[in-house]
């Protein structure tokens, strides 16, 4: 049984465009166009897609904020938008762009208030607070008002706020937006730990490096439709983008010395720099090519470039 089940989910927005002084045009935009997917308990899912693909809409439906126009969504035993109050007791949500904390109060006060709202028992609250302080490095900022925190500090505090009631699943809508590398690393490290502790994590982000280092699975959404779902490693091996091998030969290397490479590989040779570029379609060809090159030529520099996740996804988007 899957933890999250989304079946035939639809959501349309009506947009009014001004065409004249009083006239306006009605246009229906399909934000989610019959999407289906499932997520297992304990998964770390990366949910990506270009701006306007429908990512936020999906998160809003799954967190009970929004009711879909058709289809259904189920998380655990709940239909989020129907059993809102009972359902949200078990989820944590972080919106990278909006704060959930009391701006003028110290972080600890927000935690206490949320503890009250979620009815966390005193003992459990204390334990959870200690554990979060430890993992998110919160001790130094716990007694500072939220408005005084830096973006990185605030995001850590924000994650703590979303986890204070120890939910089973965490929804994150671009949590690392605008963070520096160190802060990002701290956040990512925390998320990995949570996931290893058995929490299900649903992450949307534009940062593909985050996705690559954090998630096992990935869902790609484009124009309201799911265009890829599966393991990230799989995506890389499925791509049609070539692997690029670059080799530096001694200067003034005569071109005709390369002639028997020509029989097996499509290559280009930059004579001025004596640089050889060969495009391979499969990873297993790399070793063979390297053997040939090193045996037969005096190779001074050698580089293999696999297509980056950015390039692969850019190709999928278009």
């Amino acid at each position, binding site marked *: 049984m899957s933890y999250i089940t989304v079946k035939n989910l639809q959501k349309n927005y009506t947009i009014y465009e001004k065409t004249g002084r009083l006239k306006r045009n009605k246009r229906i935009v399909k934000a989610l166009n019959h999407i289906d997917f499932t997520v297992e308990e304990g998964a770390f899912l990366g949910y990506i897609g270009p701006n306007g693909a429908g990512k936020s809409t999906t998160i809003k439906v799954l967190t009970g904020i929004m009711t879909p126009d058709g289809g259904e969504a189920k998380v655990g035993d709940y239909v989020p938008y129907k059993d809102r109050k009972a359902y949200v007791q078990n989820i944590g949500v972080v919106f990278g762009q909006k*704060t959930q904390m009391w701006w003028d*109060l110290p972080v600890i006060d927000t935690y206490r*208030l949320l503890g009250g709202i979620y009815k966390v028992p005193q003992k459990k609250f204390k334990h959870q607070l200690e554990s979060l302080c430890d993992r998110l490095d919160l001790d130094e900022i716990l007694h500072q008002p939220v408005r005084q925190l830096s973006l990185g500090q605030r995001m850590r505090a924000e994650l703590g706020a979303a986890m204070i009631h120890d939910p089973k699943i965490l929804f994150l809508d671009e949590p690392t937006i605008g963070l520096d590398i160190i802060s990002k690393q701290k956040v990512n490290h925390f998320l990995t730990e949570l996931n290893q502790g058995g929490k299900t994590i649903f992450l949307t982000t534009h940062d593909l490096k985050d996705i690559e280092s954090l998630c096992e699975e990935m869902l790609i959404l484009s124009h309201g439709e799911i265009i890829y779902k599966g393991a990230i490693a799989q995506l890389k091996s499925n791509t049609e983008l070539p692997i690029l091998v670059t080799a530096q030969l001694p200067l003034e290397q005569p071109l005709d010395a390369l002639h028997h490479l020509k029989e097996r590989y499509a290559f280009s040779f930059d004579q001025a720099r004596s640089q050889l570029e060969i495009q391979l379609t499969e990873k297993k060809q790399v070793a063979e090519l390297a053997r040939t090159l090193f045996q037969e030529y005096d190779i001074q520099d050698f580089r293999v470039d696999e297509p980056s996740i950015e390039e692969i996804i850019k190709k999928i988007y278009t």
Partner: protein
Amino acid sequence: MRLFKILFIASLKSQTQYAFDFVVNVIGNFLGVFADFLIIAMILIRFQNIQGWTLIEIAVIYSIIEFGFGVYRVIGDGLNNFETLILSGRFDTLLIRPASVLGQAMLQTVDFKKIGLVLQATLVGVWGLSQIEFAHSYAWAYLPTLYLASIVMNLLISILLASTAFWTGKNEDIVILGHYATRTAAQYPATIYHKFFQSVMTFVIPFFTITYYPLLFLTGKSQHSLYLLAPWLGIAILAPITMGVWKLGIKRYSSTGT
């Protein structure tokens, strides 16, 4: 009630972070509103009465309406600023918590600075009531009902008007016209207004049901004791409509986003 306590404490703490501003604001509010009452008092002292209503009676009407309005401004400030909650998208964060959305929206901030309003209404009320002569001795037992009804009525009207933001986005002017203007109008007896406006204040924004009608009987200007039921009727009709509109608004929000 638990939620109320939690959010009440949060707001109190938030505001005491700026203690000086807090004190200045309470005094400022008190003085500002007191000036309003002085204007009515000046006019009345000159004319002795408005269409049969004495200054003392009008002071009582004024204190009833302002007391409820003041309490609403203290505990319902979140409703007063409801449009910002919708426009900034922060309304989303209320929906992801296991608590009443209306309660959370209302108690976004508890505006203790508006205690000045309540204090001022209380003072005017004490002064008016210490001199008023009621036609019926049981009027005193009935009075708490009116003050309570005023709080409920003010809250209901503010919820009803705040809900319009679900459709219009910005609704500041709707609130100013629908609540602030009518509340000021309700500080005077209904007879000074045109028939049409009297109907509006009785059936649409029913402020007269908590001031004018019951006092008409209590002060002996009318013999219809049924007027004492007016506040109950007003609330009984307005409450389900208000809650219906609020629920409809939430439904709309959840189907359109913003």
